[in-house]
């Protein structure tokens, strides 16, 4: 601290917008952090699962006798031990199966003293299968007479969604241009660096403690209970540090009830942890889809309508994956001003792996289509491409057909900022002019954007959070909150907000958020909601504590509470910052006075959004935001390789809280989107995953990371904490179509089915050259 003449006076400073480290970073940097994968409990057994390894079959014979006899084996479970324990989104899943519906169906499970013994026991289980004909595409599954996957879901029909608004026939008639394409977003998977893991332990009163990676602790109890046949109240959820989640831990997956059932049977703690190969095969995917989309506009560039007919490969069971149309339809109807919309989606059971939720949740797939069609239309209309985007971009106060209310909307500013920073207009024209000239390497620039919920998503009756905050005799603050920390950095945000309100150093704030017996209700880390919802909850709780503290200080000092402030660990005079009383001292005075009081407050915050109704016509998020990405790429037209040189981002963040965390979320989110766009691809052939390893499933690594130019547009959301909005999904959503549009700009080819792998790009470029009949006829159908 610099010493000046005013050293004794404490000026008002704000935490908001600063750069702060994560409090857990030093322990993570030294290897001290004990992840769930590292945990060992006394008496703990190792659980292992026998997977079917075939996509569709009847189990003709199952004999576990030899496995049970193996010394060191404590329990063997099969489908007949779990009859009736149905769970999952539509209760179509059981922890252990009596029929095989996908490659990774869990047939039996063992608990043994060591991993080696458990593995040997699996090898001793005798199973005879009668293979059944399978269905491996949603089209096949929907066909008359297709093999049935579940008896109680005729026609293999899973979830169905529809939303319509406006007169489509009229809008079509008024359109001068219509683009009409089929997009096929593919299967990818989360690849959390820490593989799936659960440790379960029952006490002798029948209460289960489960250490899990869930990012959704309260609903997790509700979802897990039916898989065990116990009451959700008898489950205690503990969330140790995890190696990533990205949406994959929103659902309960069979290994979790399996760990619990083995623990129940053995009366010992049981740990189940996947190998990387098991992780690839048995953890969820991003939902794949076939999207038939049409978008129309007039010659002067005004959008007239958008339709989407979506067919989804449900896989063998219904998890959160096929619920993505709820988000997709908000993009289809709300990405730009869409006057008329017609949206339909149907999920069909197949014998493929099934999807869960994944960062970007449906919007990755939807924006892949909408943002490419916007780019196509921009080339057709009579106005400048950027003008076209600006003309259709919503402004503050507009309401989408689904009744999403766009308060504090800065879509126009995002477009203008990104375009100006990257010199988009000039480069787009220049590169297009170069497209057909000779030369192996071609440059391209592409713009894409999307809209996403940024104030939670009321998909349940509640999107709220409970917060308990206490300040102790040493002015140390504890925040007990349902907000889970899965690496994303809500811990720092909570510390900063408390520091802002109570004038304490952020490192004096402790967060307790990993035990469902302690922390109050929250709806989990998803839907870009945590900074918004937990931020508001923390702020409200801290403000209650602040009022109590200032009132006590006013009484102690004979001042008016409104003339006082909390800064730098002291009560100060608002006017000049003169320190009057150390907060620590005040806390003890409050505690030990004749009428003692402790500072311990509670708050329940429920955002002002509306529940997502069956008609999908409600303002289900308390805020929405936009992001614009402009990708600049170099394409090797010979090999088809795309190098992403630079990405300019302009995103409505509401208000920056932790600048470092925000940058990290955007850079990291884009990296996941880059993998989706360029290299990640689960090769599933007849239901079997052919590339369950990092060698064949290519994640983005350091050399492929482009230069980032990040622009945070602050819209000051009235409902958000200090104006902040949720931010973490848009980066993953927008990058892929930006690259697709840049690829078109560079080469004149469009890829509809990601990833834009070198083989696919090279083939498309080659085919376009062969076609060569029309100079611009390079749209290759998928």
């Amino acid at each position, binding site marked *: 601290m610099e010493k000046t003449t005013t050293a004794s006076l404490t000026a008002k400073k704000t935490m908001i917008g600063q750069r702060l480290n994560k409090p857990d970073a030093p322990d993570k940097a030294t290897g001290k952090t004990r992840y769930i994968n590292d945990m060992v409990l006394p008496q703990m057994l190792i659980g292992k699962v026998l997977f079917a390894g075939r996509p569709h079959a009847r189990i003709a014979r199952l004999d576990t006798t030899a496995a049970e006899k193996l010394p060191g084996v404590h329990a063997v479970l099969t489908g007949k031990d779990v009859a009736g324990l149905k769970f999952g989104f539509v209760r179509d899943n059981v922890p252990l199966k009596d029929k095989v519906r996908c490659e990774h169906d869990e047939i039996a499970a063992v608990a043994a003293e060591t991993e080696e013994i458990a593995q040997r026991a699996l090898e001793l289980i005798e199973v005879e299968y009668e293979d059944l004909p399978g269905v491996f595409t949603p089209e096949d599954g929907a066909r008359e007479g297709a093999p049935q996957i579940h008896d109680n879901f005729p026609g293999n029909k899973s979830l169905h969604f529809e939303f319509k608004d406006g007169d489509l026939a009229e809008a079509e008639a008024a359109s001068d241009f219509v683009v009409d394409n089929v997009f096929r977003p593919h299967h990818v998977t989360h690849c959390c660096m820490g593989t799936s893991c659960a440790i379960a332990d029952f006490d002798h009163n029948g209460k289960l403690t489960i250490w899990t990676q869930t990012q959704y602790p309260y609903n997790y109890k509700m979802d897990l209970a039916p898989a065990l046949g116990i009451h959700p109240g008898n489950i205690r959820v503990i969330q140790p540090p995890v190696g990533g989640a990205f949406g994959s831990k929103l659902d309960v997956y069979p290994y979790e009830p399996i760990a619990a059932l083995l623990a129940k049977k053995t009366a010992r703690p049981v740990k189940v942890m996947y190998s990387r190969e098991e992780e690839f095969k048995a953890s969820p995917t991003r939902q794949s889809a076939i999207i038939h989309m049409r978008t129309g506009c007039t010659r002067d560039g005004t959008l007239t309508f958008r339709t989407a007919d979506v067919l989804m490969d449900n896989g063998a069971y219904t998890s959160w994956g096929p619920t993505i149309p709820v988000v997709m339809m908000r993009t289809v109807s709300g990405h730009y001003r869409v006057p008329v919309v017609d949206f339909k989606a149907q999920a069909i059971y197949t014998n493929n792996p099934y999807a869960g939720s994944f960062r970007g949740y449906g919007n990755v797939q939807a924006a892949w289509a909408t943002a490419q069609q916007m780019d196509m239309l921009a080339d057709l209309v009579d106005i400048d491409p950027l003008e076209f985007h600006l003309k259709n971009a919503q402004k503050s106060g507009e309401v989408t057909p689904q009744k999403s209310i766009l308060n504090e909307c800065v879509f126009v500013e995002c477009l203008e900022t990104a375009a100006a920073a990257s010199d988009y207009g000039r480069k787009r024209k220049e590169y297009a002019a170069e497209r057909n000239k000779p030369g192996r390497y071609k440059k391209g620039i592409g713009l894409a954007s999307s809209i996403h919920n940024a104030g939670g998503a009321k998909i349940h009756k509640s999107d709220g959070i409970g917060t308990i905050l206490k300040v102790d005799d040493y002015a140390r603050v504890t925040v007990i909150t349902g907000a889970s920390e899965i690496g994303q950095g809500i811990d720092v945000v909570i510390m900063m907000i408390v520091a802002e309100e109570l004038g304490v150093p952020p490192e004096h704030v402790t967060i307790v958020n990993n035990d469902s017996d302690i922390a109050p209700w929250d709806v989990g880390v998803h839907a870009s909601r945590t900074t918004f919802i937990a931020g508001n909850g923390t702020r409200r709780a801290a403000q209650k504590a602040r009022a109590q503290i200032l009132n006590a200080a006013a009484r102690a000092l004979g001042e008016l509470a409104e003339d006082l402030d909390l800064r730098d660990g002291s009560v100060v005079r608002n006017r000049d910052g003169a320190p009057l009383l150390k907060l620590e001292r005040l806390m003890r005075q409050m505690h030990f006075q004749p009428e003692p009081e402790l500072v311990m407050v509670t708050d329940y915050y429920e955002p002002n959004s509306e529940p997502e109704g069956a008609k999908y016509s409600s303002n289900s998020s308390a805020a929405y935001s936009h992001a614009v990405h402009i990708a600049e790429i170099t394409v090797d037209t010979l090999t088809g390789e795309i190098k992403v040189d630079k990405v300019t981002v302009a995103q409505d963040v509401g208000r920056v809280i932790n600048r*470092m965390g925000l940058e990290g979320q955007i850079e990291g989110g884009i990296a996941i989107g880059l993998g989706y766009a360029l290299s990640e691809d689960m090769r599933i052939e007849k239901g079997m995953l052919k590339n369950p390893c*990092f060698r064949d499933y290519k994640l983005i690594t350091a050399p492929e990371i482009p230069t980032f130019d990040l622009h945070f547009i602050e819209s000051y959301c009235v409902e958000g904490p200090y104006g902040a909005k949720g931010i973490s999904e848009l980066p993953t959503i927008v990058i892929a179509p930006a690259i697709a549009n840049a690829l078109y700009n560079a080469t004149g080819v469009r890829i509809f089915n990601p990833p834009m792998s070198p083989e696919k790009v090279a083939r498309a470029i080659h085919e376009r050259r062969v076609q060569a009949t029309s100079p611009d006829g390079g749209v290759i159908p998928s």
Partner: protein
Amino acid sequence: MMSVETEINFKLNGREVSLRVPATMKALAMLRDRLGLTGTKYACGEGECGACTINVDGKTVNSCLMYAVDCDGREVVTVEGLRTPEGLHPVQQAFVDHGAIQCGFCTPGMIMQAQHLLENNPTLTREEAKRGLEGNICRCTGYTKVLDAVEAVADKNGRCSHG
């Protein structure tokens, strides 16, 4: 079923250790399950992700591929061994300060590799850092802040700013 155990002696994070390990045991399993050094992570077991990176006689190795018996007579450093009595190693501190850690699961391996690169080339460039970290997968950070951290150390080591 029990495979033959061999006695091995080696230096681990500056201290001599001696233990018996089965011939089939990997160094990663020995560190995590026998010696309680869980900082070194398992994330693929096939040498494809770098989460298990340790330093053996001055070179980085994927401990999931190395046999435990091959540690015999060597000098092994894990992420737990980088810290000095004064506090975090400068590379660890740079990772903390530059936001290079989110979930942190890749971090031990990433730091071991970054430390190795910096030791051999104290003023390395961003491009060199990118190539040197190619074998380390991070699913959270997008690598930018990792590279910032490595560059910050290189700058402290006297790298000229446009090197």
